[in-house]
């Protein structure tokens, strides 16, 4: 899982995400790698962010865009549990496509901060002819 922010000069910053939860109200809480210093310093109420979620086995991907509801927060117990759940799903899948465990460990963030966004748009990001197609809201 990855994402991006941009500063006032339209300079983007890519970052890794290590776990996310979606509430019934359409608020996505993502755990962003702490090396994303520009994003950490910039995120506040109304900041635009994008996040892309992909399956490492079949490459099916989804990108969402939305605005943050406030400043970054330190991860709480529920966030740490979310990270553990993510690892339990992601790591075995990565092994199946031949990714060495040491590589997964190498890209795993050593620390994270939490960012919550209200979802505004979603796009199919799966490689192929439908990539970039906007997804409509369900009933």
């Amino acid at each position, binding site marked *: 899982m*990855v*994402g*991006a*922010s*941009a500063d006032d000069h*339209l*300079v*983007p*910053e*890519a*970052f*890794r995400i290590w776990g996310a939860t979606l509430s019934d109200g359409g608020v996505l809480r993502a755990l962003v*790698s702490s*090396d994303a210093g520009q994003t950490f310093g910039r995120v506040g109420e109304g900041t*635009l*962010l*994008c*996040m*892309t979620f*992909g399956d490492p086995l079949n490459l099916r*991907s989804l*990108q969402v*865009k939305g605005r943050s509801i406030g400043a970054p927060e330190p991860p709480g117990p529920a966030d740490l549990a979310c990270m553990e759940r993510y690892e339990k799903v992601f790591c075995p899948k990565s092994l199946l496509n031949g990714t060495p465990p*040491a*590589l997964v*460990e*190498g*890209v*795993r*963030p*050593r620390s994270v901060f939490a960012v919550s966004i209200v979802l505004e748009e979603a*796009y199919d*990001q799966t*490689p*192929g*002819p439908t*990539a*970039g197609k906007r997804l409509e809201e369900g009933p």
Partner: protein
Amino acid sequence: MSSDREFDLRSMQGCFDGAVPPVIATCSADGVPHATYLSQLTLVDDDHVALSNQFWSKTTANLADNPRASVLVTDSQTYETYRLALSFERRDTDGPVFERLRVSIDAIAKMMGMEETFSLRSADVYRVLSCDRIAGPPQPR
């Protein structure tokens, strides 16, 4: 290599072998960020890299208005991850950089059974503005 550069792309060969898919982020003229995976990054010279462009309609549109990009790339040999700040310069649809990427992309596509989907459109060439190591095994002090 110029004396004021603080990075040495040639020492990062494992970033350019296509083993670990990099991530690219761009931003539209109205400030909307976009992030997607790409197949491969290749070294052009001491200051430039080229990225495989296969199916990036939004990334391409963003770069037409705003040349800045941010890339996360992981070295397949050392497992270190770097964040590159880039500025888009040109789009090659033939020539040595394009051909080098095309051969590599074709091999990746064949391995994944996605020959049609992974057809290379262009080799997009960027100037590297900065390169920061952001993750990886602990470094010796």
